[in-house]
């Protein structure tokens, strides 16, 4: 009995300590990366390639998801809004949800898998094959060389990808409304404009900036923490996706509380 209790306490204590350690390391990474921003000559040349990798390469998958989200939103909205509620509310629902929630969050969750896991695996492989150490020995700051351009690229490109996704999502919802729901364009647009605020777009942009930082930051963190070969690389990638997704949803709730 005492043993069991001791074990339970030890488990909680252990988890607490390792959790705090992880947070401390993450904070350390954050501070280090922040300090590394001044090494502009190291990270700037890598910004554009990373923007291409993080942003441009993510556009197809983001648009694919947005397209189907728009279609489904439109259909489900028309299914839900029956009777007394005017049909143009389909436009309102599609527009509002795409801009405020699904555009940023679904894209970010997808990119947590695509970009976060990719970064984590790449940096993890570099870590276990000593390429990170090699950078150090060649007098490069690995944080400036690896972390800063990736995070910056995501911070710049996530909003872009999200805006495109929102546009496509609304367009596909619109198309669906016209083709499958017998709505007219003026009706859909009326609904779309009904409750639209320019602030909504800013909200989406702010959210995506934070999501970009989180996805790449978490990817870099777990990537650089990788230990023990190929298995470790896999584990880092998995952890990245899980933790980044969780943080995205937490941040989502946070922004909704703070900004709306």
């Amino acid at each position, binding site marked *: 009995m005492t043993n069991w209790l001791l074990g339970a306490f030890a488990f909680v204590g252990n988890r607490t300590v390792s959790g705090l350690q992880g947070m401390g390391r993450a904070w350390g990474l954050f501070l280090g990366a922040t300090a590394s921003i001044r090494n502009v000559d190291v990270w700037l040349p890598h910004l*554009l*390639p990373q*923007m*291409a990798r993080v*942003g*441009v390469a993510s*556009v197809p998958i983001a648009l694919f998801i947005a397209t189907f989200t728009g279609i489904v939103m439109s259909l489900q909205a028309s299914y839900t809004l029956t009777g*007394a509620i*005017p049909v143009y509310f389909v436009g309102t629902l599609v*527009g509002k949800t795409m801009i405020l929630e699904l555009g940023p969050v679904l894209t970010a969750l997808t990119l947590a898998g695509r970009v976060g896991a990719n970064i984590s695996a790449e940096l993890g492989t570099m870590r276990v094959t000593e390429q990170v150490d090699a950078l150090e020995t060649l007098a490069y700051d690995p944080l400036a060389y690896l972390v800063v351009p990736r995070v910056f690229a995501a911070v*710049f*490109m996530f*909003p*872009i*990808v999200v*805006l*495109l996704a*929102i*546009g496509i999502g*609304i367009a596909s919802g619109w198309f669906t409304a016209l083709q499958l729901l017998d709505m007219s364009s003026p009706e859909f647009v009326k609904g*779309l*404009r*009904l409750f*639209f605020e*320019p602030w909504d*777009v800013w909200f989406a*942009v702010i959210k995506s900036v934070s999501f970009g930082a989180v996805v790449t930051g978490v990817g870099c963190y777990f990537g650089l923490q990788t230990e023990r070969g190929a298995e470790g690389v896999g584990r880092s990638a998995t952890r990245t996706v899980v933790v980044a997704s969780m943080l995205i949803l937490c941040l989502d709730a946070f922004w909704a509380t703070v900004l709306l």
Partner: protein
Amino acid sequence: MERRREALVGLVVMLGVAVGVVGTIWLQGGLRRDMRELRAASQNVGQLVAGAAVRFRGVSVGHVDAVNVAPDGEAVLVHLSVEPDLVLPADAAVLLAPESMFGDWQAEILSRADFELFSFLDYPEEGVLPAAALPDFSRLTATADQIARRLTTISERFEVAFTEETALNLKNAIDNIGAVSDGLSEIITQQAARFEDLSEGVNASAAELGAAARQARLSFERVDSIIANTQVEGMLGDAGATMSNLRELTESMNASLGDLRSAAQRADTTFARLDELLAAAESGDGSLGRLLGDPTLAEGATEAVQELRALLADIQENPRRYLSFSIF
């Protein structure tokens, strides 16, 4: 290779920014052209807020920029942005009214001559349009209630002589008014029921209207009992005015107005006049006896009631013509 990548990143960035900027502008309702600034002054503005639509002959021609109290505190200044090439009537005035039963308010630019009944505020400053705010339904019912209460007090306070015939005619007329207002409130209730979960407020106000009408009828019945065994005499000066108001109400309902809102506006004005009249009577101007004793009053009332009844029938037949509620 490097150039291609740069170009690709640039393209995606520009596309994204374009979607964001153009989309925002488009969703906001298009780029705002150079708008013409108008100002209007009103006693109060009801629920009007910045951003509300400005309409002219039913067409949206701009929006409300700002609403603020005038420096002297005696009026509210409404700043309007309207299309620059809009030609306004010479006696332009602004009517602030609900756009729909549940939605936002709007500012409607109209010719003052067509709507003499409203008390537009003339602001002592060049270029400020006179404006008036329309009472909404709750205010209408409140007025009706006020009238009913006044009637009760008056009927209690004055014991006036009536001829039996006049009294009977009047009683019929009053009954009929009661019936009409019952019918009206019934229609509103029916319409409101269609939007029941969204429109408890309407139900309530319709019910209030009905209750007010019933109350009015109750007090009329009391008048009725008073006059049953009393002699009636006296003449009336203001009867003509009352009659013309009542007729105006029915005419305007019949003729030009396409929706309940306008009818309600007229009703409100009529109520207001009636109220004034009763208040004057109560304050001892002594005209009530004459008012009630005038046989033309009863005749006029009957006539008006017939017209009202015709209107009511039309409303029942084509409710859409009068009650174009748009919830949003």
